[in-house]
Every structure is written in C-alpha cells, then in structure tokens.
C-alpha cells in the first residue's frame, strides 16, 4: 500500500537513493562525537565553579552573569562525558557519592525496596529475567559497597574509579535505563501525552528506541520516570541564554519530586533534592551546592530521631534545618 502512495515520487528518487552506504555507516556521524568525547572521562574530577565560568570567558555575557548567580548557591561542578548517557551517569555518581558521604543506611534500605518493585514491574511487563538481572545485581552491589564496614566497602577514590570503568559504569547506566523504561511502560497512560508531544511515537516505541538503547539522550520524561521509580528527588538547574528578568538574571531550576507514595517522608513540601544536576542544552553535569554536608546529616538524623522517638531533639533539628535551608547557611562538616 505504501508503495502506491510513493509511486509518483519513486521514479525520480530511484537513481539517487540507494542507501547501502547509509546502512553500512549507521551512526557514522556519532563516531566523531564519540571519539572527541573519549578524552573526557565518564565522570570527571570535581572542579570549582570558576572552571565553568572559564569556559564562557569570551562568550555570552548572560551566561557569565548566570554562572555568577550560580555561585551564590553552588561551589563546584563535576563533568560527565557527553555520550548520550550523561544524565544517567551523573545521577549514578551523584547518588552513590551521597550514600558514601552520608552513610545513609536508611536510604539504602528504602531504595532497595523500590529496586525490587522495579524488578517486579519488568517481570510483569514480560521482560525475561536474565536480560536485566545482571544490571540490577551490579547496582545493588555498588549500593552495598559504598556503605562502610563491609569487606567489600570502597573509598571515594574507588567509587570514582568504578564510575570511570566501562564495565561497571555502563552496567549501572543500563540498570537505570531498564528502571526508567519499566516505569514509563507501567504508567503508560500518564506518560503517553508527554511522549507523543516529544517524539510522536507510542510509549512502547519510545522505550525501545529512546530509553533502552545506550547513548540515547534523556529528556524530562526519563528524569520523571527514574525519579518516580526510585523515589529519589532530583533538582535540575538550567543554564541557557534565556533571560526573562529585566532587573537582573536569575537561574531557573526544576525539582523532580517523586509521587508521594514512593517518598521516605510524605511531606513533599519539605523535600530537598540531594541530587543536583546542571543542564546545558544537550548535556547534564553534577552540581555541588554550598550547603550540602550538614543538611544531609541533619536530615538523616531525623529518621533516627524519629525511630527512637526523641521528640525534643527532633524538633530542634527541624528548626535548624528550616532556618539553614531558608537562609542558605553554609556550615562546616561536624
């Protein structure tokens, strides 16, 4: 049927459109980018925010102004390779680093429950176990290893090494892709309009062609799905040339807050994402807020205080937490 529609144009096209070359060089354009990118490690070193400003020294004044504004809240950036996996890779490192630094055992227990839920989702969607189980196992292994006190515990340096080692890094990225795809397909009715607006395809096609294959870039849909599935809030700070304020530039951010059912505490207003990513059109890196350390310590203590029902100390901790969040107070690590 298709051929009849095309008949009118076919004659003119036949000579020039044999696509043998096309298929042989599938993705040929990407190779250049890949090669160029392979000089950047999967996950880079932590760099001061001034390194970001240096990139735009002779560039857009709006961007420079925005980076200055960023400096009020953020101190450092960690770059990831722009190979299409940068969102997942940034999320991976940022999350595992957070667990390593906070030793948040409660968070690890919580996310493991969600991971098991994701496993069931994939099974119920008809995925064969062996296609995804190795990726799940490797992520769970990393989770256990960043907690100290086990035989297999790892240092921050080793976490960085593993994040740069393709055999670990890509497997964890693929784990996130499976989780994301499962969540989108499970809630296909919710995601359908977004996906249709984005790519004009069905949910299933979208997952098959834009979520599951390595190197496919992430969009709002991916971030929402991953954040929901794992119950991890994510803040994305946008750095682009847009400016709406006449008075002065401001930097927009968007918080991806998981559906309440998936969250540790039900009060979604007080959710403070511990993962902050910097988005520049087409790419994600990791951002480090100024006030990182102590807020997490307080937040994770809250769970313990709640567990042992120490109300007075809990209330005091909450007051400090609210004040510091509101006023962006930076404190030393205890």
């Amino acid at each position: 049927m298709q051929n009849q529609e095309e008949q009118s144009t076919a004659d003119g096209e036949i000579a020039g459109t044999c696509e043998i070359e096309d298929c042989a060089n599938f993705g040929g354009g990407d190779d250049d980018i890949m090669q160029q990118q392979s000089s950047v490690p999967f996950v880079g070193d932590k760099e001061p925010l001034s390194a970001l400003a240096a990139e735009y020294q002779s560039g857009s004044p709006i961007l420079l102004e925005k980076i200055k504004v960023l400096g009020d809240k953020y101190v450092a950036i960690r770059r990831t390779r722009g190979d299409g996996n940068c969102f997942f890779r940034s999320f991976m490192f940022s999350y595992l680093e957070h667990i390593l630094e906070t030793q948040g055992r409660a968070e690890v227990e919580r996310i493991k429950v969600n991971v098991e839920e994701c496993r069931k989702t994939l099974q119920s969607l008809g995925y064969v176990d062996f296609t995804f189980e190795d990726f799940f196992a490797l992520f769970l292994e990393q989770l256990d290893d960043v907690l100290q006190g086990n035989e297999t515990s790892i240092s921050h340096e080793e976490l960085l090494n593993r994040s740069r080692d393709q055999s670990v890094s890509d497997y964890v990225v693929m784990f996130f892709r499976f989780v994301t795809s499962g969540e989108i397909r499970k809630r296909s009715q919710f995601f359908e309009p977004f996906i249709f607006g984005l790519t004009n395809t069905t949910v299933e096609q979208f997952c098959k062609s834009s979520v599951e294959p390595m190197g496919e870039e992430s969009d709002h849909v991916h971030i929402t799905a991953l954040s929901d599935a794992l119950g991890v809030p994510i803040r994305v700070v946008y750095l682009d040339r847009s400016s709406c304020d006449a008075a002065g530039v401001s930097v927009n951010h968007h918080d991806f807050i998981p559906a309440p059912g998936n969250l540790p505490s039900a009060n979604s207003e007080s959710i403070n994402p511990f993962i902050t990513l910097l988005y520049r059109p087409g790419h994600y890196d990791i951002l480090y807020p100024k006030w990182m350390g102590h807020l997490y310590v307080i937040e994770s203590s809250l769970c313990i205080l709640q567990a042992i029902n120490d109300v007075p100390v809990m209330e005091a901790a909450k007051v400090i937490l609210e004040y510091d969040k509101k006023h962006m107070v930076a404190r030393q690590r205890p």
Partner: protein
Amino acid sequence: MQASRARLFKEYKEVQREKVADPDIQLVCDDSNIFKWTALIKGPSETPFEGGVFQLVFSVPEQYPLQPPQVRFLTKIFHPNVHFKTGEICLDILKNAWSPAWTLQSVCRAIIALMAHPEPDSPLNCDSGNLLRSGDIRGYQSMARMYTRLAASPMKG
C-alpha cells in the same frame, strides 16, 4: 568478557528450555565457542519466503549484551534489507537501537518480522528495494520466491 559469557550461558539454558515453544526458530550454540551461534529460521507464511529455511550466523562481541551481536544470513535471500552477497542485515536493533533487553532468540524473531515487513526505504539490496519502491510487488515477490526455492528449500539439503 566474564559478564558476556555468563549472559550467553543463561541464553543457552533458556534456548534449551524453550526449544518447543518457538518451532520457527532453531538456535544452536557452537560446541566449542559460546560466542558463535547459528540459527535456522522458517520463512514467515504468506510471504515469498514461506516454505524456506534460512540459516543465520551470529558473532557475539565481548561487550555483549551492551553491544549487539553481529548477524548475517548464510542462506541467499532476496530482500531489500539484506545484502545479496554478504548476507548483512540492515535492522535498527542490530545497530543503534540495540539494547540488552533483546536476546539472540528475540533477534531471530525480529529478523522473521523484517522478512515479512521489508523496509524498502533503507535498502541494502537496491534491486529488491527498487522493485518495492516502484510498486512492482509482483516482480519483488517472484524474485524473492525464486531465491527461496533455489537457496532456502530444505529439500535440496
């Protein structure tokens, strides 16, 4: 390397278990090398490939399943998306749309689906693609059927 071996071993066990489940696909692992597989697939019914049995060869890379297996037809086939001389297959899941969610078995299923639904707009076999693109369905089908009889007929051994 270890990971790919482990994964392939799981696929091997699954294939043994599912043998009866999919009578159109017979996937066999090389006795001495788990990275080499062959498959016999039946040409889908109501296509010019009906009645034919086609042999595929798989070469699995060490980065499998993060990277796709290389697959080609060993049996000659007249199809827009299969190279007439080398048997190379133009299929997105074997290139940029690959993901570890696919298995050797499901790749075979995708190839059977491709046989039934050729994509003449990205041809590896221009003659075959041009017949379809110019609307000469009958010409395409008779060529394809002829090669099925010549090369893929089980009778001829």
